[in-house]
C-alpha cells in the first residue's frame, strides 16, 4: 500500500472512530419517545477521571494520574458508562493486552464524574470495535479472563460497522456481555442500524477527538478553517491567482483555540467542560505546523515557534495536496515503517 493510500485509510479510520463515538453516546442521549436529546444524560469524550488509591499504579508499576476514556456517559441514576473505541486494532495479538490494560484502569472507583461527589454508584466498561476484529478480540478476552484480564464491573464488547447499503448506517451489536441500562442493552443485543444522516450536523462540527489525527487531515483542518479565514480578509484574496500567495501570520495558540471551538467535542460537553482536555492538543498543532515548514508551505516567525507565517495559496484539492506532500515526505525520509506504526 502506498503512503497516500495509508494516509487515506488512516483518515477514514479517524472519521469512523468519531462517528462510532457519536453514534454510541447517542444510544444514551436520545429519547426515542420524545424524539429529543435527554437533558439529564451527560456525555463526554476524553474526560479526565482520577483513579482510586487502589489503582494509582498500573500493572507495570507506573503511576496513573488520570484516565481519559473515549466515551463517558453519566446517567440520571448516578450510574455511568466508560469506553474505548478502536476502529483499527493491531494485527499482533501481543499488542492487544495494552488495550485491555487501559480498560482495566477504568474498572475502578474513579473520581471526576459530573456528580456532587464526583463518583457514580456503578458503571459499565465498554470496548467498541470494528466488526472485523470483534470476534477474535472476544475470543482473546475469553481465553485470558480471570487470569491476566480481570473486570469486577460489567464488561461489554460491542462491534460496529458501516453498512454498504445506499442508505448509510452504522451498525452496532453486542458481542459479549450485557449493558446495565436495559433499554440500550435490549436494542444492542439484536443489533441496531443507526442512520448516518441523523448525525450529519454533528459529524460536520466534530472533526477531532482526543487522539492525534493523521497529519494531512489536521493540516487540512488548519488550512481550510484558520489559514483560509485569515487569508480571505486580505483585499487581494478574491483575485489571487494560483501561483500567487498571501502570507498569513498566525499564533499557534489561536489555531488551537479556533479548532477547539469549532471542531472538537466541546459542544457536547456543555458547561461541564472543566475536566476536558483542550483538543486539539497544542503539540499536535505544533507538529502540523512543523510539517508545513518542512514542506515549504510556511516559516516560523522566530525561534520561539509561537507564531507561524503560512504561505496561503489556492489549491484545487487542499486535502489531496497535503496527502501528496506528506506522503512524499514520508517516502523520502524512509519513515514508512515508522509511519505505519504510528
Amino acid at each position, binding site marked *: 500500500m502506498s503512503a497516500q493510500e495509508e494516509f487515506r485509510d488512516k483518515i477514514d479510520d479517524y*472519521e469512523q472512530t468519531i462517528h462510532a463515538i457519536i453514534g454510541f453516546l447517542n444510544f444514551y442521549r436520545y429519547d426515542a419517545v420524545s424524539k429529543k436529546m435527554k437533558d439529564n444524560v451527560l456525555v463526554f469524550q476524553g474526560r479526565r477521571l482520577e483513579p482510586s488509591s487502589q489503582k494509582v499504579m498500573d500493572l507495570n508499576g507506573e503511576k496513573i494520574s488520570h484516565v481519559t476514556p473515549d466515551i463517558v456517559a453519566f446517567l440520571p441514576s448516578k450510574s455511568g458508562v466508560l469506553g474505548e473505541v478502536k476502529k483499527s486494532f493491531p494485527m499482533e495479538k501481543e499488542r492487544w493486552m495494552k488495550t485491555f490494560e487501559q480498560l482495566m484502569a477504568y474498572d475502578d472507583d474513579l473520581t471526576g464524574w459530573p456528580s456532587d461527589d464526583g463518583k457514580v454508584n456503578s458503571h459499565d466498561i465498554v470496548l467498541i470495535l470494528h466488526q472485523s476484529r470483534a470476534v477474535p478480540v472476544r475470543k482473546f478476552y475469553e481465553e485470558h479472563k480471570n487470569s491476566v484480564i480481570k473486570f469486577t464491573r460489567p464488561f461489554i464488547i460491542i462491534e460496529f460497522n458501516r453498512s454498504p447499503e445506499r442508505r448509510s448506517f452504522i451498525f452496532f451489536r453486542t458481542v459479549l456481555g450485557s449493558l446495565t441500562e436495559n433499554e440500550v442493552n435490549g436494542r444492542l443485543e439484536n443489533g441496531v442500524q443507526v442512520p448516518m444522516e441523523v448525525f450529519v450536523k454533528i459529524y460536520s462540527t466534530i472533526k477531532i477527538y482526543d487522539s492525534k489525527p493523521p497529519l494531512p487531515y489536521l493540516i487540512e483542518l488548519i488550512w481550510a478553517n484558520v489559514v483560509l479565514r485569515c487569508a480571505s480578509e486580505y483585499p487581494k484574496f478574491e483575485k489571487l491567482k494560483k501561483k500567487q500567495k498571501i502570507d498569513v501570520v498566525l499564533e499557534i495558540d489561536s489555531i488551537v483555540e479556533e479548532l477547539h471551538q469549532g471542531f472538537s467535542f466541546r459542544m457536547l460537553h456543555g458547561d461541564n467542560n472543566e475536566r476536558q482536555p483542550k483538543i486539539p492538543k497544542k503539540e499536535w498543532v505544533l507538529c502540523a505546523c512543523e510539517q508545513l515548514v518542512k514542506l515549504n508551505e510556511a516559516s516560523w516567525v522566530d525561534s520561539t515557534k509561537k507564531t507561524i507565517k503560512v504561505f496561503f495559496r489556492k489549491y484545487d484539492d487542499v486535502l489531496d495536496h497535503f496527502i501528496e506532500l506528506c506522503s512524499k515526505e514520508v517516502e523520502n525520509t524512509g519513515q514508512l515503517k515508522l509511519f505505519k506504526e504510528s
Partner: protein
Amino acid sequence: MNRFDFITPFYNSRHNRESLIQGIDSILAAKSLSARAIPFSCDKPPIEWFPKIIGGSRHALLINENEGVQLFELTHSFKDGDEEKKESGRFFIYEHPKYEKVYVALTIESSDFFRRVLLPFIQGLYPTVIMTFITHKKLRNLLDEFQATNQFTDLIITRASQRLRFEEEGKHKKVMPIVSWPDMDLTEAFNWVYQNNGWFQSLQFEVRKNSTRIAEISFTRQGIVRTNHIFSKVFEAFVLPVCKTIHENIEIFGHRSRRENSDLHAKPLVIDFGEEQFSEISENAKFIQAMRQLKTASVSVLHGNPYIHMSVIDYYDGSTFDLWVLNSNHLVIVPQMKGSISAIKRLINHVFDTYAEGEIKDYAEATK
C-alpha cells in the same frame, strides 16, 4: 423628415416604478428596440455604491433618481490598438417594492451596450452582486403561465442554447452550440432536453396569438430577460417571478454560517432529488466528477463509497462546506464557519448545472 424623438423625453422623465415599466412598454411599441432586464441581489442599494466603484474599466454615473428608480450612465473605457475608446449607455435600477435587497437593472440601449458594458459590469460585481438560476421545471412553469395568462396561442422556440449533463460514464459533454429549433413547440423542446438530462442556458421564442406575431422574447437560466414588445406583460410574467426566486434564495441561503450562531452549530441545507438519484453506486463517481468541475474552489473527497463526504472551499470569499450523500435522495450541504449567500448559491447552481436539479430545503424540514 425629422422623426419624433421618444428616447430623450423618456430619459428626461423622473420615473417611478410604474411609469418606468409603462414607459418602456410605450417605447417598444413605437421604436424598433429591445428592453433587457437583469434581476439581481446585493446587500446595499446600488445607488449608494455603484457611483463609488473605482478601478476597473466601467464607471456608473447617477443621472437622476425617484421613488425606487434610478437612472445611471455607464461608460466603458477600453483600448482599441493604441486608441483609447469609450462606449456609453444608460440603464435604470428598479428597486423591488417588496423584496429588500432585490433589484433589476433595465436598459433599452443596444445589444452591444448590453453585452459589452452592462452585463459585464453587473457580473463583475460578484460576489457582492448575485443573480439566480432558474431550474428547468421553473422555466417551464413560467412559460406555461405566461402563455395561459395572456391567452397566447403559441410560444415557438426559435433559438436555444442547452447544456447536457452526463452523456456516458466518465465523459462530460461540453456546451453544445446554439441550436435552431425551427417550429418546435414548448412541450416537445422541454421533453427533449429533459430526456437528454439537460437544461436550457437560454431560450428565444416567438409569442403568437393566432397567426399574429406579438413579440420575440429571450430568457436565460440566470433570469435575464429580453423582449421587443409587451414589456409590462414580460416584466410581470418573468422579471418579477425571478425577483421572487432571488428573494427566496436570500431567505433560505442566508444566515447559514456557523459563525453567526453563538454556539457555532451548523445549519445544513438539503437538495432533495425526489427520486432514487443515488441508487446506483456509479452515481457517486458521477457526482464527484461533477463537483470537481467547480471553478475557483477546492474540492476534496474524504469518502466516496458507499457514502459521499466532501469538503469544498469557495475561493471567491472563503466560504467552506461539507457535502454529504447518505441516502439515495438527498445531498446535504453543511455550511461551515462561513457560508455566504453567494457561495451557497454558486454551489447549488453548480450541482444543478452539472449533476441534477432538485428541490432546496432546510435540513430540518427535509428530515422530518
